[in-house]
């Protein structure tokens, strides 16, 4: 590698360039080949569902609980046709419309859950890791216990508690979001806490302390920036899990009341009894929607993890441009 490289500008040493403020962009630059393809594909899938969710009323041909249009009732359990691309359900609702509106429900719950998890998990991890002592021990014990619990069962318990045993129409999305937050907050907490414990002993933190910075300042100004870097990775990896948990809740008849919003898991539960008659469209389309969105989120999360996790990172060799040989020119 000590060969003379006349045009250094041509070699791409982007890994050493200062990290960009936009995390996605830096990650995209650090990837190559198959990895980049996965990241881009995942991002596109996510974008597709975001568009679907935001413009659901414009995209969906009918309302999510409409069983008629222009005064004419839809026929129930219709196979896919030009009028109903994805067919109709046993209640006469348009499956396509329910799938489209379902993306809105999923997105609302996931965005809320990730937001709550960060707002609760990151500060808790910082304080617990920095202060240590009995607070740290108790929090670690509780999160360890939560961690060992099957996520779905924990979500059920929390959802029952918040929704008061009878899922109200208004609180459905909020209750589901909080339930999912409780399930996934331990992971944010643990990562931030462990990073904080490691960072606490670093010379720069000690220097800050020696200069008389109060704990608050040390945590916010000095440690925070260095421990939150893995949070986007956890958030994306957990978002996929969270969507599956939400769908599981709906499938077991918990989560969101069917009259207040369309939810894919609930639709799949209803579709279960249709299968015996060979009716495939009521379950297949919401199922594909769940699988597709989770694939999208996972592809992004895995790629970010591969790029940002030094244990998995493959060293990307700097392409070396050799000077043209004398006899060829």
């Amino acid at each position, binding site marked *: 590698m000590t060969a003379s490289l006349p045009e250094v500008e041509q070699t791409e040493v982007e890994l050493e360039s200062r990290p960009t403020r936009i995390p996605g962009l830096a990650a995209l630059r650090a990837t190559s*080949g*198959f990895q980049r393809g996965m990241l881009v594909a995942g991002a596109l899938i996510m974008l597709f569902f975001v568009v679907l969710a935001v413009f659901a009323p414009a995209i969906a041909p009918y309302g999510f609980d409409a069983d008629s249009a222009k005064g004419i009732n839809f026929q129930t359990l219709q196979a896919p046709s030009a009028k109903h691309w994805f067919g109709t359900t046993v209640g006469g609702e348009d499956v396509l419309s329910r799938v489209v509106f379902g993306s809105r429900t999923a997105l609302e719950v996931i965005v809320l859950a990730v937001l709550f998890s960060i707002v609760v998990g990151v500060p808790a991890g910082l304080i617990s890791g920095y202060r240590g002592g009995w607070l740290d021990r108790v929090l670690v*014990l*509780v999160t*360890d*216990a*939560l961690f*060992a*619990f*099957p*996520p*779905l*069962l924990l979500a*059920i*318990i*929390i959802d*029952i*508690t918040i929704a*008061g*045993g*009878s899922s109200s129409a208004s609180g459905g999305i909020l209750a589901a979001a909080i339930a999912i937050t409780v399930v996934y907050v331990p992971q944010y907490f643990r990562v931030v806490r462990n990073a904080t414990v490691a960072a606490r002993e670093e010379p720069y933190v000690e220097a800050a302390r020696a200069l008389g910075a109060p704990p608050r300042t040390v945590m916010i100004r000095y440690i925070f920036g260095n421990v939150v870097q893995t949070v986007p990775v956890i958030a994306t990896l957990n978002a*996929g899990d969270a969507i*599956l948990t939400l*769908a*599981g809740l709906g*499938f*077991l*008849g*918990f989560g969101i009341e069917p009259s207040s919003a369309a939810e894919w*898991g609930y639709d*799949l*539960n209803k*579709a*279960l009894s249709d*299968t*015996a008659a*060979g009716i*495939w469209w009521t*379950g*297949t389309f919401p*199922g594909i929607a*769940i*699988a*597709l969105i*989770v*694939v999208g989120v*996972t*592809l992004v999360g*895995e790629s970010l993890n591969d790029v940002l996790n030094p*244990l*998995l990172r*493959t060293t990307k060799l700097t392409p070396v441009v050799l000077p043209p040989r004398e006899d060829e020119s």
Partner: protein
Amino acid sequence: MATTTASGSLRTYLVTRLVLVIPMVWVLITLVFFVMRVIGDPISAALGGRLPPDQIAIRKHNAGLDRPILSQYWDYLTGVVHGDFGTALTDNQRISHVLWVKGAATLELSFWALLVALIIGIPLGRLAARYRDRLPDVGLRLFAVLAYAMPVFFLGLLLKLLFAIKLGWLPASGRASTNVELAIQNVSPKTNIYIIDAILYGDTSYVVDVLKHAVLPAVALGLLVGGGFLRLVRVNLLQTLRADYVEAARARGVPERRVVRAHAFRNALIPVVTVMGLQIAALLGGAVLTEETFEWQGIGYTLAQYLVARDFIAVQGIVTAIAVIVAIFSFLIDVVAAVVDPRVRY
């Protein structure tokens, strides 16, 4: 473990680990108990509107629900220690009895699913690591992502549609045909694990019937867990393949096939055993949904029914029991990992 100090450290590790399990289980039981009490008393939740208020008051008194919460908590805690998880409100079944009977079904399903997961996950993970970033790896990684992303109930539904309804090869739901189920009820040492009961009954066609019923649920749940195994084996094998001793083997001219098989593979499996402890939670969570999909009458199916009936005493008991089971299993797996890998023992 040739020397006494090594076995001594193993014992220390096991004791430490056991001491850590107890507060964890206690925290879980406590959390579930108090969280479930926040919503008010379970009897009104289950029977409110169906019984007159004075009837509910009597029932509450009989169940001890009008006593101070701390004394109820103490009773519940001592009950759990003695294996008593309460009595369901809706059908007056003892939860410990329900667990005993339905637990066998869940155990059977989990066993088949684990078998499928191991058969799929370990060889394919090895294949993916061996051909890193080449076509088999790309394909298998996409498969693993899909296996993870697919909700187990959706996969189950598709399997049912294709193999049970359209092709008619396999039964769509249940653990056995009705006549088989009735016949094997009378087997003398009844285990409730149908495959064992069917073998004890001694009719080959019954065994086949039970196996046929198990195929679709086991594949659905097994693919879910197997995708996770695949990724675990792949990542661990990749890390091992980068180790110095593996490099040394390569330098000695050992062919790559043999490097993977004889040098790296076994060592790569050790961390997998450790992480399998975490997979138990996923397996049981997935079992709840799989059982609901295939009407497999195990703990998960029963739990879903109690949930619909709003019988929160039963829900609390079953969830607590599952938490205890998960804690015990992850402890056992850690023990196995400690025996297999001396590095685990601190």
